[in-house]
């Protein structure tokens, strides 16, 4: 059976990373018809929205997308392509698993966390005003339904994957109403999952605990802004954004993406590590019920990382993006 998946190659180094990942998926034997779509700088330069309506409609139609990194314009006049996709497709649950990869140096031995970030509200509603020439305000929106659906998603995932503990992260000691609502909803949802241990941490304490007692944590659930920050901290613990995968889920659609930026200064240099997008594609294959192929790709990647002969610059090597992908393909074929 052939799957249909929307492919957004992205900006900067995105196209070359996508090329590498597509080679590996193809070598796994999984048949995918890639439906090409655009978002990011190219449509913006043509005067179109950063995520054209056609791209949104294609993802709604085919339900699954794989997305390379995109450039987020800074300052006035434009919005983030990534946030636009999440908002327009109502991809409310961002999943960022982090674990100690074989062969990737990290001081965080046995790291194994799954982070769920609420994706559609909080300060990311991006509702901002100047109320006087010297005062700007931004609305932080936390709703009971918005909190409930991400919490239920995380608890359901934890239950389905045999995870033991869910930790909710907040700042309800200061934002007693907004973060307080998130925490209160978490306590209510947690009661329906008695087999899963539940606790909560204030976000600043969470930062310290993560880098000192990371083994105490299993599944984390956070409102949007804290989730953005903590998931990058955790990616660093894993070995950097170059190896950290991500997925965004809505009720109907899912978008799998590398969480790092588009690294435009390396564009076209065949230099960057495609591992993050490859592991995102592994998540995608599991979502498509291609778990066996996902497992084989993961193992082939681990083999290459552990052998250490072919490494990209971020892991201390000199191999290019395509050379690294070729090594994974070779490992994949040698195992089959």
């Amino acid at each position, binding site marked *: 059976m052939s799957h249909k998946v929307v492919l957004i190659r992205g900006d900067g180094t995105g196209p070359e990373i996508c090329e590498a990942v597509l080679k590996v998926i193809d070598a796994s034997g999984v048949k995918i018809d890639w439906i090409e779509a655009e978002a990011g700088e190219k449509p913006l330069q043509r005067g179109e929205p950063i995520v054209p309506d056609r791209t949104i409609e294609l993802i709604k139609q085919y339900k699954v997308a794989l997305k390379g990194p995109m450039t987020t314009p800074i300052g006035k006049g434009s919005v983030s392509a990534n946030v636009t996709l999440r908002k*327009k497709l109502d991809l*409310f649950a961002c999943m960022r698993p982090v674990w100690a990869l074989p062969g990737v140096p990290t001081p965080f031995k046995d790291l194994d966390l799954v982070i769920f970030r609420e994706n*559609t509200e909080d300060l990311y509603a991006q509702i901002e*005003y100047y109320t006087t020439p010297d005062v700007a305000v931004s609305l932080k929106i936390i709703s009971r339904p918005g909190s409930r659906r991400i919490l239920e998603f995380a608890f359901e995932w934890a239950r389905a994957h045999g995870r033991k503990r869910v930790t909710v992260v907040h700042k309800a000691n200061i934002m007693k109403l907004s973060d307080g609502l998130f925490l209160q909803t978490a306590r209510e949802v947690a009661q329906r999952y008695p087999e899963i241990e539940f606790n909560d941490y204030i976000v600043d304490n969470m930062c310290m605990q993560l880098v000192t007692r990371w083994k105490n944590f299993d599944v984390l659930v956070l409102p949007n802004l804290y989730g953005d920050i903590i998931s990058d901290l955790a990616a660093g613990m894993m070995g950097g954004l170059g190896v950290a995968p991500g997925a965004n889920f809505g009720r109907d659609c899912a978008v799998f993406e590398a969480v790092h930026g588009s690294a435009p200064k390396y564009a076209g240099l065949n230099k960057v590590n495609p591992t993050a997008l490859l592991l995102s594609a592994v998540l995608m294959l599991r979502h498509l019920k291609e778990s066996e192929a996902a497992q084989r790709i993961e193992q082939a990647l681990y083999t290459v990382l552990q052998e250490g002969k072919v490494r990209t610059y971020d892991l201390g090597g000199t191999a290019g993006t395509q050379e690294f992908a070729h090594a994974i393909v070779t490992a994949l074929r040698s195992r089959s």
Partner: protein
Amino acid sequence: MKLVGADVYIWSQGIPEVPKQVGPFQLLFISNRGTRVLQPVEPKAECIDWWRCRYRAEREVSHHEVHVLLETLSQKHVWTQAQKLFEISGTNAYSEPY
């Protein structure tokens, strides 16, 4: 600061049926948690019961005209928050929806 409109946040179980024109103001969009849901209508979006209705005028308006807008909307709707929209040096001093 040039006053040009208002965002009026309405408490409603569905997309509120607010007037498209009130005095000098035109309804530009309705959004939910920052995402445009009208126009066009986004039937699949899961929405909360708090809707932002953006009313914008083509010219500078008075504070009294904003009060009239709120009074007009109050006849059929419950608004819980409103924010005046300004331009500063010809630039909109407010964000746009997704």
